[in-house]
């Protein structure tokens, strides 16, 4: 691909600006210039954008709504928990007996091991499931993915428990002496990977193919796009990226997030729907909106949060089916380029 073309597009500028923003935020936080609260919020925001973008590859770009997609986040958490609480447990226990924080070398190793394990499992599951389920169109695909979360997680745990027993979901020493700054930078690394991957997909030939599938799958097939293969690739990539965020979350929170998987699936969908399908920036804006909404709801309505979220989805789908970004693109044509 042509490099100058690649970096001149608006999506690249947006990606780099966001990366820069989080870089600055992180540096300010680590030097104590701003309060640590911002670090926690920043970590959350990266997470929300990250999962939104991961989902975007199959939903916003390809037009296939995967209802149980949080299962891949769960696979990531599970992998991280496994690497820490089972695979490396003795080493960690031993080291923690004499130090109050695991070494950077250990951290990097475990991080990479988690990424590898999660990628492998996510890939296997996504391709296996995708092969069966991506032959189905729109609504049938959605239904097939609904109970998937539950089923796959059950199978993954069942199978791995037969390979090597995995007792609990907890890590021996929560956080292993790591600070919130460490988690921030871990999220940051994954954020860079996720956002640039999403961008590259969007502007590549692969991305064009996905867009054509989303717009009119029959026409895409007839024009030469191998729709089935592309859908499987998109699904697999979306799965692997989602699993990364499960890893990030597990390191940070010291337990698998499997209990919250229902909510995470909903969040991923809401972010994409609110932002609008088909654009790069859509899911990002959707994530920011969700982030703000989430913060508002927790501090004010508490228990009504889900009700409001659900109502929000209904309103968006019924009255703003193109999402916020889609609406803006239509109303203000000059912004079209920026909101691609």
């Amino acid at each position: 691909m042509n490099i100058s073309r690649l970096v001149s597009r608006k999506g690249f500028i947006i990606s780099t600006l966001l990366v820069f923003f989080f870089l600055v935020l992180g540096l300010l936080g680590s030097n104590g210039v701003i309060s640590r609260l911002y670090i926690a919020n920043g970590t959350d925001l990266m997470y929300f954008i990250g999962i939104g973008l991961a989902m975007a590859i199959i939903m916003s770009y390809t037009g296939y709504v995967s209802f149980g997609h949080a299962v891949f986040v769960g696979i990531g958490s599970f992998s991280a928990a496994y690497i820490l609480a089972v695979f490396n447990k003795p080493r960690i226990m031993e080291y923690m007996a004499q130090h109050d924080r695991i070494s950077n070398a250990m951290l990097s190793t475990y991080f990479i091991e988690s990424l590898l394990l999660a990628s492998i499992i996510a890939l296997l599951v996504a391709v296996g499931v995708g092969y069966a389920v991506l032959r189905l169109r729109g609504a049938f695909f959605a239904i097939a993915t609904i109970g998937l979360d539950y089923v796959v997680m059950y199978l993954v745990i069942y199978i791995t428990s037969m390979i090597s027993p995995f007792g609990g979901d907890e890590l021996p020493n929560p956080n292993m002496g790591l600070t919130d700054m460490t988690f921030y930078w871990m999220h940051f690394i994954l954020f860079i990977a996720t956002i640039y991957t999403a961008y590259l997909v969007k502007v590549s030939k692969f991305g064009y193919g996905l867009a054509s599938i989303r717009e009119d799958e029959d026409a895409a097939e007839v024009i030469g796009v191998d729709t089935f293969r592309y859908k499987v690739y998109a699904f697999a990539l979306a799965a692997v990226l989602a699993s990364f965020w499960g890893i990030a979350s597990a390191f940070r929170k010291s337990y698998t997030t499997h209990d919250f998987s229902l909510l995470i699936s909903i969040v991923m969908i809401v972010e994409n729907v609110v932002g609008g399908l088909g654009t790069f920036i859509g899911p990002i804006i959707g994530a920011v909106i969700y982030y703000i909404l989430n913060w508002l709801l927790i501090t004010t309505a508490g228990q009504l949060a889900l009700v409001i979220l659900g109502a929000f989805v209904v309103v968006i789908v019924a009255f703003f089916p193109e999402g916020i970004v889609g609406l803006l693109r239509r109303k203000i044509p000059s912004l079209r380029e920026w909101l691609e």
Partner: protein
Amino acid sequence: MGEPILIVENVTKRFGGLTALSQVSFNVNKGERFGIIGPNGAGKTTLFNVINGVYRPDTGRVVFKGTDITNWPPHRRARFGMARTHQVVKPFSELTVLENAMIGALFGPRHKDITEEEAREIALETLDFLGLKEKAGLPAGLLNVQEKKRLELARALSSQPEILLLDEVLAGLVPSEIETMVELLKKINEEKGVTIVMIEHVMHAIMNLAERMIVLDFGRKIAEGSPEEVANNPEVIAAYLGNPELALKFVKKG
């Protein structure tokens, strides 16, 4: 002329109890302008769907450029040089006109080595050829019907196909637009050497345009030959309940 570019041999297609196509056979020669006509429900689009790979026939073969492609998926046929437009246009609405055309180029026969730059160039050239260049940056959904039809054609042409299957490309156009399109199709055929197979209802246009044609009725081929031969065929006339002299008048008009 040599080996026919497209051979359809004994194709039958059933949907449950309904036989949409029955033992249809014909050849299309390279560089030809070939017509397919017949009353509504005769099975013309179904025939296209079989040739194009959307359906697999229950019996029979489809041979393209000497290769048996009967069981190939549609995308493979596209990459092999077969392009197709639809009766009801299927634009990629949210993408720009240019992007629509580019996709044709990116996934056509040159899909392995074509760069985005080259695809863009080819797309622009095709859009220019079809008079859509000024609208290149617009979302395809905003075009009117005639423009969408031309875009569908542009998208198919950008893949630089060897054969072009056109399904009622003139439907919904006013007479002046039909004239333009007919000239355009002749140009595509003569200047670019693309074989054209077209389904049409606009009689004077297809009688004018096609060098040879077949007539389908209830899934069977009931006639084959030049436009004059077909127009004078009693079975064809009976199928349309038309006036043979009227048909001949259209032919002379061309």
